[in-house]
């Protein structure tokens, strides 16, 4: 099960970006891609194949679910939303990253202060 795996290894960047994009509210595929690029500061642009492979996996693990569908320009748009399980996992991952970043920041401060070379 994906949730079980996530407890043992860190979340992949595309998954983190997708869950973060959906944390603000339901979004459709193209919206997730543009939002993920914004969140990553332009560093990561999700490819369509990667996005839908991740969505397929996240949907199976019940971390995201379809919200609604609408037709725009003659094309189907499906919106996805974060489930409570998905939000909990994102919160845990955010905390883990925050803790790692805090350690990194602390060591860099010590290095700059001349503690280690």
């Amino acid at each position: 099960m994906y949730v079980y795996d996530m407890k043992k290894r860190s979340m992949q960047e595309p998954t983190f970006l997708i869950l973060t994009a959906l944390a603000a509210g339901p979004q459709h595929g193209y919206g997730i891609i543009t939002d993920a690029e914004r969140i990553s500061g332009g560093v990561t642009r999700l490819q369509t194949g990667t996005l839908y492979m991740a969505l397929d996996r996240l949907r199976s693990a019940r971390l995201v679910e379809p919200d609604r569908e609408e037709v725009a320009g003659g094309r189907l748009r499906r919106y996805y939303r974060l489930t409570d399980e998905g939000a909990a996992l994102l919160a845990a991952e955010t905390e883990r990253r925050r803790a790692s970043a805090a350690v990194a920041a602390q060591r860099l401060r010590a290095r700059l202060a001349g503690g280690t070379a």
Partner: protein
Amino acid sequence: MPARDPAGAAVLERRYLRLLRCYPPTHREFHREEMLGVLLAAARPGQRTPGLGQAVNLAACGLAIRVRRIPGWLAADAGQDALAVVSLIAPAVVLILLALGRGAQAATAAARVPFWTQVLLVPPSLGGWVVVMIAWLAVVLLGLTGSRGAAAAIASISLTLAWLAVLTAGVQQSVSGGLVQFLGSAGDVPVFLTSLAACSLVFSPGPRRGLAIVGWRRACFMIAGLSAGFGFPWIVQLADPAAPVGDLAFRLLGVLAIAVAVAVTRVRSPVGRRVAGLVATGLLPSLAVTIPLVDYPGGWDLVPLLVILLVAVLVWPVAIVSWLGRVRRASRAG
């Protein structure tokens, strides 16, 4: 995609649709329209062909999803039904291939010794093939009469002999006569199909279920088609004993014959797709035979030998995963 180039957009859409065929049918059914929408929305103005990176990403992700779904694909009811169909057709194909192989051997030697002399005066140490043909006839008949366990036991014994024959090929060649050579000749069976037949008999509802799914006519057609595909070299040798069946071009023709046989006998249903997938695994050993790189001391080519053994072993976990799926469903229902 700007509306000023509708023809270009149509071309691009067609090309993306072609790439989306890499995805499993159920994924396509659910996501195709929205994926197409995203792909076209992200396209550059005037773009008519998918970028290389985009194309590789779509193909790789589609294939990755297919691979990820294999355990579920096998564990579904259709997986067990497919194995049941395989347990019906594979033993019959093995029996026919044994007969074809023996016939081809007799045809190539007929110029030197009359056929019936070869049959009647066969040395006891080389008579394993007679026993093994009777054994596979028994497997087919026992399977059809509902004695799946007995059929599975005989098929497994034959497979064990085949393993021993492969692993002791060198020993057999240095020994003339005796039990070792008898067992060697009894193990002279198509290893992959024997393995497929044995594991499908052990881990499926059995040939009677397979017959209920495909019916007599379809089963006979599949058996005939697959026998023709897998037995292509021997059929040619029967027609022309001097045919150069060992040549590379001929071996490649053999691979093509199997591919055609799998495609022609394929049934367009979830069960049929799984049956074709299982049987098509036999293409790997045939392909490997076309790339002999290193000679093995027993006269075998090492690469084909390893591929045959690997594929013959791998069909067992596949069958076990499928069987475990059925057990799990039964325990949930019970």
